[in-house]
C-alpha cells in the first residue's frame, strides 16, 4: 500500500514539474529563512546562558541603575556571610590603556578590575593557573587565551610580568576567551585590590557609583531576602537616600539594560519582529502549498473516485495526501538545508553572531528538523487532504468541469492574504529604511565629519604641534564627545530650594570645543581662552537645560556645580559661576531619546583630543598626526577614531534590522509570486477552452490579457485595502520609539502598492501572454 502511495506521489510530482518546483522552492526558501532567523533568535536568547547555575546569579541594581558603590560588596559579605558568600564586582576600564610585555605594547580596551570570587560566581574556566589564587593578591593579572597568544606566542605566560598603568603585574592565569554571547566581555582581569592603590579613599565612598556587583545566591535563598539585606546595609552605612535595591536575574541583563549599563545590549523587540517575520514568510510558503495542491487536486479527482469505488476509506485517503504533503515538505527541507549551508556564513558575518547549525547534536538536529518538516507538511497538507478526500466518488469520476472551480474563492482569499502580507512588509521595510536614513542624515547640531578623536596625553604640547599642521583646522579637548553618555553631577541655582540637588549631565571641555565640533550658540558666547574667568566661573548650558531650569534669558544666571569632596565621602560645591551662553541642542546621545539637559564647563580634567581636519586626504593627515603623537608623547599608544564612523555604528542595530527586514520582505514577495505563478498556470490551464472560444469569437491578444489580469488586479487591490491601514498603524507604533522620526508619507504606500502590482502582473503575464497568443484550435479540439 505504502509503495503504491509513494509511487503515485512521485509520479504526480514528476508529471507536474512546475507544481513540484514551485512548492519545493517556496517551502525551501521559507524554511531556510525560518531556520536562519531561528538560529539567530536562539543565539540572542542564549546570552549569559553558558554560566553554570545561571538562574542563581543576579546583578544588584540601585533602583534602575546598574552602577553602584564599591562599598556594597564587602559590607554585604561581612554582614551577611550566609547570604552573600559569592559576590563579585566588575569595574571596567572605560578608556583604552596600554599593556606592556617586554617589547610588545598595545592599547587595550577590555580590561576589568574584579574580585577573586569571579571564578566562583561565573563560569570562566582557567586553562592555566589556579582559580583560588589567580587574583588573590593585588599585583596579578589574568588574561584570555587569545591575549596570551598575542603577547606571549608559544611562551608559557604563567609567572611572566606585564605592565599596566606603571604597575608590574604577574600573569597568574589564563582563562578561556569569554563567549561572544556575554553581556560583558573582557580580555584582562586585574584584582580590585590594585584599584585601591589608585583610588585611595574613593573605594570607601558610598556615593561613588561605578561598580557592577553580581551575586550568586545559595540554594533556597530568595532574591527578596538579599534585597532586604542590601537595603538595610545602605541604611546602616550611608547617609544618602538610596532607591530600593533590586536583584536582576543574569539572563535578563542582555535584553533589559539598566541605567548606566555595563556593555552592549540586545533589543528584544527586534528579536520578536524578526522571528515574527520569519514565521510569516514560512506561512506564505505554506499557503502556496495549500493553494497549489487544492488547485491541482482537480486533476486527481479521478484517482480519488477510483480509490473510493474500490473501497478506500476517507481517512486512508487523508493519510495518503498528508503523506504526499510531508514528502514534499521533506524535499523542501533538503532544499532549505542546502540554502542554509550556503548562506549561514554570510548571515553570521553580517550580524556578527557566530551562528552554526547544531550538527554536533546530530540526532537532536535530525529529529528536530524532521519534526519541523512533519509539522509544516501536516499544517499545509491538511486542508488539501480533507478537500481531496471529500469528493463523492461518482461526481469525481464524471470529471465535470464545474466542480473544478470550487475552492477558488478560498484560494483567491489566500492569495489576497499573501499579498497583503507582502505589501505590509514592503511598507514596513521602506519605513525602517527611511527612518534609518533620516537618522543618518539628520542635522545632529554639530558637524561630525572630518573629526578625529584621539587621546589627550600631553595635550597642550600636542595641540601646539597639531595646530602647526596645515591639514588641521582646529584642535580642542573634552572629557567626552558626542556618542558617549556623559555623567550626572548635582547642580543648584538660586531659584531652587537649598536642599534640592537635581543632577544634570555634565561635560568638561576646553575652550574651542563648541567651535571645533561646529555647534551653534543660541545665546551669549562660548568659552574663550583669553578670558581667565571662563576657566574658573563660567558655564555653557544647552537649550534643553535652559528649558529645564525654566530660564528664558539664562545668560548671567548663577549655577553651583557639585563634585566629590576631597576624601570622596560626599558631594560639595566644586565650581560656582554664571551662565555665559546657551548652545543649540545637539544630539550627543541616541536619536531614540530627546536631547537631555547638559551643562558644560572648562576643566583640565580631559581625556580626549578633538581634531578637526581641513579638506584633503584623511589617511595622510592621520599618518602625520600619528608621527606627531609619537614624538610628543613617546612610549604611549596612539589610538584614534573618526567621529562620523563611531556615530554611524550607533545605528548599526537599526541598520541591520532594516537590511534583514528588507531581505525577508523580498523573500516573502518572491514566495508569494511563486504561488501566484503556480495558480495562474493552473487557472489559465483551466481556462484554455474559454480563451479559445473567445479568440474564435474575435477577441484579440490585448483583450485576453485584460481578461486574465483583471482578476489579479482585483486581488492586489483588496490586499492593498487590507494591508495599508494595518501597516500604517504598526509602523507609526514603531516610530514612537524614536524621539526624532519621519512621518510616513503617502509615497511609501503608493510605492508598495505599485511594486506589488507590477511584480504580480509580470508574474501573471508570463502565463497569460502564453495563453493569449496560443492558437485557439489547439484548445478547442475536443473531439
Amino acid at each position, binding site marked *: 500500500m505504502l509503495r503504491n502511495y509513494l509511487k503515485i506521489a512521485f509520479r504526480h510530482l514528476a508529471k507536474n514539474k512546475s507544481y513540484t518546483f514551485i512548492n519545493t522552492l517556496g517551502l525551501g526558501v521559507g524554511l531556510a529563512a525560518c531556520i536562519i532567523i531561528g538560529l539567530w533568535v536562539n543565539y540572542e536568547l542564549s546570552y549569559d546562558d553558558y554560566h553554570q547555575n545561571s538562574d542563581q546569579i543576579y546583578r544588584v541594581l540601585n533602583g534602575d541603575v546598574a552602577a553602584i558603590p564599591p562599598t556594597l560588596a564587602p559590607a554585604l559579605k561581612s554582614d551577611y556571610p550566609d547570604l552573600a558568600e559569592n559576590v563579585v564586582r566588575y569595574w571596567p576600564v572605560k578608556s583604552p590603556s596600554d599593556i606592556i610585555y617586554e617589547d610588545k605594547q598595545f592599547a587595550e580596551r577590555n580590561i576589568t578590575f574584579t574580585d577573586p570570587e569571579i571564578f566562583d560566581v561565573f563560569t570562566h574556566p582557567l586553562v592555566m593557573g589556579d582559580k583560588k589564587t589567580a587574583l588573590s593578591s593585588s599585583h596579578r593579572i589574568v588574561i584570555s587565551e587569545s591575549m596570551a597568544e598575542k603577547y606571549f606566542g608559544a611562551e608559557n605566560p604563567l609567572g611572566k610580568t606585564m605592565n599596566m598603568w606603571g604597575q608590574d603585574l604577574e600573569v597568574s592565569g589564563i582563562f578561556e576567551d569569554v563567549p561572544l554571547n556575554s553581556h560583558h566581555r573582557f580580555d584582562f582581569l586585574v584584582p580590585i585590590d590594585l584599584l585601591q592603590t589608585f583610588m585611595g579613599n574613593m573605594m570607601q565612598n558610598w556615593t561613588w557609583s561605578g561598580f557592577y556587583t553580581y551575586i550568586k545566591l545559595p540554594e533556597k535563598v530568595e532574591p527578596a531576602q538579599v534585597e532586604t539585606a542590601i537595603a538595610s546595609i545602605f541604611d546602616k552605612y550611608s547617609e544618602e537616600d538610596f532607591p530600593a535595591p533590586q536583584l536582576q536575574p543574569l539572563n535578563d541583563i542582555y535584553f533589559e539594560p539598566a541605567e548606566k549599563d555595563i556593555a552592549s545590549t540586545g533589543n528584544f523587540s527586534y528579536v520578536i519582529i524578526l522571528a515574527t517575520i520569519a514565521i510569516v514568510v514560512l506561512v506564505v510558503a505554506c499557503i502556496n502549498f495549500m493553494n497549489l495542491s487544492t488547485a491541482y487536486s482537480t486533476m486527481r479527482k479521478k484517482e480519488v473516485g477510483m480509490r473510493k469505488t474500490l473501497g478506500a476509506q476517507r481517512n486512508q485517503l487523508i493519510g495518503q495526501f498528508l503523506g504526499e504533503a510531508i514528502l514534499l515538505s521533506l524535499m523542501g527541507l533538503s532544499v532549505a538545508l542546502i540554502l542554509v549551508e550556503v548562506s549561514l556564513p554570510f548571515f553570521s558575518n553580517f550580524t556578527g553572531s557566530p551562528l552554526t547549525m547544531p550538527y554536533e547534536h546530530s540526532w537532536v538536529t535530525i529529529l528536530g528538523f524532521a519534526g519541523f518538516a512533519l509539522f509544516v507538511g501536516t499544517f499545509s497538507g491538511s486542508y488539501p487532504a480533507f478537500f481531496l478526500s471529500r469528493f463523492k466518488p461518482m461526481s469525481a469520476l464524471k470529471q465535470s468541469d464545474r466542480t473544478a*472551480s470550487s475552492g477558488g474563492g478560498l484560494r483567491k482569499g489566500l492569495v489576497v492574504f499573501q499579498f497583503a502580507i507582502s505589501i505590509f512588509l514592503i511598507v514596513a521595510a521602506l519605513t525602517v529604511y527611511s527612518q534609518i536614513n533620516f537618522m543618518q542624515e539628520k542635522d545632529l547640531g554639530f558637524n561630525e565629519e572630518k573629526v578625529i578623536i584621539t587621546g589627550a596625553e600631553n595635550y597642550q604640547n600636542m595641540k601646539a604641534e597639531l595646530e602647526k599642521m596645515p591639514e588641521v583646522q582646529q584642535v580642542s579637548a573634552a572629557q567626552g564627545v558626542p556618542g558617549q553618555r556623559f555623567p550626572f553631577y548635582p547642580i543648584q541655582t538660586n531659584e531652587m530650594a537649598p536642599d534640592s540637588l537635581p543632577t544634570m549631565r555634565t561635560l568638561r571641555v576646553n575652550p574651542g570645543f563648541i567651535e571645533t565640533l561646529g555647534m551653534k550658540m543660541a545665546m551669549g558666547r562660548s568659552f574663550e581662552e583669553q578670558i581667565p574667568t571662563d576657566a574658573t566661573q563660567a558655564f555653557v548650558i544647552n537649550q534643553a537645560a535652559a528649558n529645564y531650569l525654566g530660564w528664558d534669558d539664562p545668560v548671567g544666571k548663577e549655577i553651583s556645580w557639585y563634585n566629590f569632596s576631597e576624601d570622596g565621602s560626599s558631594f560639595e560645591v566644586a565650581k560656582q559661576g554664571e551662565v555665559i551662553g546657551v548652545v543649540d541642542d545637539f544630539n550627543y546621545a541616541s536619536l531614540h531619546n530627546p536631547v537631555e539637559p547638559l551643562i558644560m564647563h572648562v576643566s583640565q580634567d580631559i581625556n580626549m583630543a578633538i581634531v578637526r581636519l581641513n579638506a584633503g586626504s584623511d589617511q595622510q593627515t592621520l599618518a602625520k598626526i600619528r608621527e606627531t603623537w609619537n614624538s610628543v608623547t613617546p612610549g604611549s599608544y596612539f589610538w584614534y577614531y573618526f567621529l562620523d564612523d563611531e556615530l554611524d555604528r550607533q545605528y548599526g542595530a537599526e541598520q541591520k534590522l532594516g537590511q534583514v527586514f528588507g531581505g525577508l520582505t523580498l523573500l516573502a514577495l518572491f514566495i508569494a509570486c511563486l504561488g501566484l505563478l503556480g495558480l495562474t498556470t493552473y487557472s489559465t490551464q483551466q481556462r484554455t477552452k474559454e480563451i*479559445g472560444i*473567445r479568440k474564435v*469569437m*474575435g*477577441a*484579440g491578444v490585448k483583450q485576453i490579457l485584460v481578461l486574465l489580469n483583471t482578476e489579479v488586479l482585483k486581488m492586489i487591490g483588496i490586499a492593498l485595502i487590507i494591508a495599508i491601514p494595518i501597516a500604517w498603524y504598526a509602523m507609526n507604533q514603531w516610530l514612537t520609539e524614536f524621539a526624532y522620526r519621519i512621518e510616513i508619507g503617502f509615497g511609501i504606500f503608493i510605492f508598495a502598492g505599485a511594486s506589488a502590482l507590477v511584480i504580480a502582473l509580470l508574474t501573471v503575464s508570463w502565463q497569460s501572454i502564453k495563453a493569449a497568443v496560443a492558437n485557439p*484550435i489547439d484548445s*478547442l479540439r475536443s473531439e
Partner: protein
Amino acid sequence: MIQLRNIDKYIDKRFQRTFILKGIDLDIEEGEFVTIMGPSGAGKSTLLNILGFLDDASEGEYKFLGEPVHNLSEKKKSDYHKSHIGFVFQAYHLIDELTVYENIEMPLLYRKVKSKQRKAMVADILDRFNIVAKKDLFPPQLSGGQQQVVGVARAIIGSPKLLLADEPTGNLHSEQSEQIMEMFKKLNDEGVTIIQVTHSEKMAAYGNRIINLKDGAVVKENPYEEE
C-alpha cells in the same frame, strides 16, 4: 467568395512530411450551402479551420472576397474574421461561467458594439431562436440541442457572410439535428453562405452542394461507398 488554389497542409516530423491536405482546389460562391463530407482523418476540420482563418495553409493560394488571405496582415485577418465569419462547433463551446445571454453577447463585445445596440441585437436573436425564456440560464443547465441553438445564435449575431459549422449536429439526436438544419436552411435563404462538415447524408441533403474529401484531397465519388 472563396477561391482555393492548390492548398497543401502538412506537418513536418523527423524528416517525414505528413500531408493533411494536398492540392485542394475549391470555389465557393456567395449564397451557397456547402457540405464537406469524408471519413475521419480526411482533413475536413483542417480545411474548415483554414477557411475560417483559424489555421494557415502550408502552401497554395486562398482568396476571400477577392483578397489573397495568405498575404493579409494579422490585423486584417482578425478584422475579416470578426466581421465576416461565424463558427458553430460540434461540442458547442459555450462558456460555462456565462449565461446564455452573455454567451450570445460576447462576439459583439469584441466588435465594440455599443451597449444599447447590443441589447437590441441580443434580444432580437433570442426572440428569433425562441430562447428568450432561457436567457439567464447557464449552458450546463440546457440540453445539447438547446446549447447548440445558443451556439448558432452566437455565431450569427454579428450577421456574418460566412457560417462555418464543424459537425454541428454530431452530438445531437435526430429531432434536434433537424431543428438546427432547418435553422441553417433559413439562414441560407436569407443569404448567408454556409459551409458545414458532417458525416450524415441526411444532414448533407439540406445543402445544395457536397464536397467529398478523402486523404486530404477532393474526390468526385462518394467516399463512403468504398469502405
